[in-house]
């Protein structure tokens, strides 16, 4: 789900940087408006480390392979800290392992950051759900939905970025195949996120959904 360097045209990569910078500025403003903006830093850095490590574990889904995204979990646990955390994780991945790219850092930040913020919004809206089944379902939707939204953004951006003279239907088929390979991941990630948030709700509820 990371777009590498060399594929997208300059307009899209610069647009990605602008969008990611704008989203990060909004998030940082929201964080600074909190009574103690640094209170969430230890959790944010911990989750950034988890995000960094998790996306290096590839799960084979023939004919391709996928990796855990964890953007739904990042959003549910970090709230506004999720966007800067994702950008830092992506930068480390690009510099240390060449995973993703430097020119596509902004685009990849938007692809994973927007679903994380959507998961945060969902989690905050459903914070009042007290029934365990309802809370588990909301967590599953946050996890799986974030993956599906990230896949959709990835496919749209990649389709918009490939050279115009190429066969559009063939490109669409290839990108759709890649997107379909992520459907099992969405299901798996939804289940893992539901289990993680269910556990945290019982043991450390203060770790979920910071404001």
């Amino acid at each position, binding site marked *: 789900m990371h777009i*590498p*360097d*060399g*594929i*997208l*045209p*300059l307009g899209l*990569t*610069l647009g990605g940087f602008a969008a990611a910078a704008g989203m*990060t500025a909004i998030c*940082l403003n929201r964080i600074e408006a909190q009574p103690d*903006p*640094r209170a969430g*830093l*230890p*959790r*944010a*850095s*911990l989750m*950034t*480390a*988890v995000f*960094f*490590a998790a996306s290096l574990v590839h799960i084979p889904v023939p004919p391709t392979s996928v990796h855990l995204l964890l953007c739904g979990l990042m959003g549910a*646990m970090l709230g506004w*800290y999720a966007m*800067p*955390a994702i*950008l*830092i*994780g992506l*930068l*480390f991945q690009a*510099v240390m*392992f*060449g*995973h993703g*790219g*430097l*020119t596509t850092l902004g685009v990849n930040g938007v692809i994973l950051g927007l679903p994380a913020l959507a998961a945060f919004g969902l989690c905050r809206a459903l914070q009042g759900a007290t029934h365990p089944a309802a809370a588990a379902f909301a967590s599953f939707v946050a996890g799986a939905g974030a993956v599906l939204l990230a896949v959709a953004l990835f496919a749209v951006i990649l389709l918009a970025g*490939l*050279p115009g*003279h*190429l*066969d559009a239907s063939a*490109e669409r*088929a290839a990108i759709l195949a*890649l997107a379909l390979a992520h459907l099992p991941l969405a299901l*798996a990630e939804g*289940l*893992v*996120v539901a*289990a*993680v*948030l*269910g*556990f945290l709700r019982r*043991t*450390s509820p203060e*770790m979920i959904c910071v404001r």
Partner: protein
Amino acid sequence: MDPRLRIVAVLLLAFSFSVLHEPLPLALMAILTLALVRLSRVGLGSLARRLRVPGVVVAALVAVLPLTSGETVLASLGPLALRAEGMAAALGIALRFLCIFTLVVLFLGALPSPRLIAALRGLGLPALMVDMALLTLRHVEDLRSDLGRMQVAMRLRGAPRGFWRARFRATGWVLASLLVRSHARSERVYHAMILRGHGAPGAAPPDAFARSPTDGVWLTALTAAAAFLVAIEQLA
């Protein structure tokens, strides 16, 4: 070279490489990259090893292009046909990716991560993100060792069987236990850092970067090379 200038140089070159599509500028881009590899004395073997995982991802993305895109058939085998336009597009993407990947390895690969973060701070990265990045580096190693220990302990206790219980709930619970345990440690570490004066005005001077006259010459030369490539692309 000053790490801040390295970041500026690699971004300039990477973005200029990303606009190149014509054969001549692409060839010049490859020559410039090879010259930089030669100057930096980074071994090709080391580059190839680092390329293994990201290279596979790009190969998967571009492999379908020569078989599916374009009108001019170069060769065919049964239902498969190799097309010139798709081949040219795939080669262009692969070459740009290879060159930008090499630039990142050459300019930033050997830079220690704390130094990279300090350079980003010098270029204006917000203090909150700088702290987050520094703490992240500390957590990566801790998490790796903790996760290994917890997985072994889980297996020794007899991990639950079955699709839902074994695959997802158990994985989720291990991850959640790891988060709870690491979170407590993470807060202790951060509070200890604050007690030692981290973030207080004037308490810890920012890392000093010394920019030598040679750095300026290098940056000017690389900027000129980037501008030259873009100009050739526009003229081609």
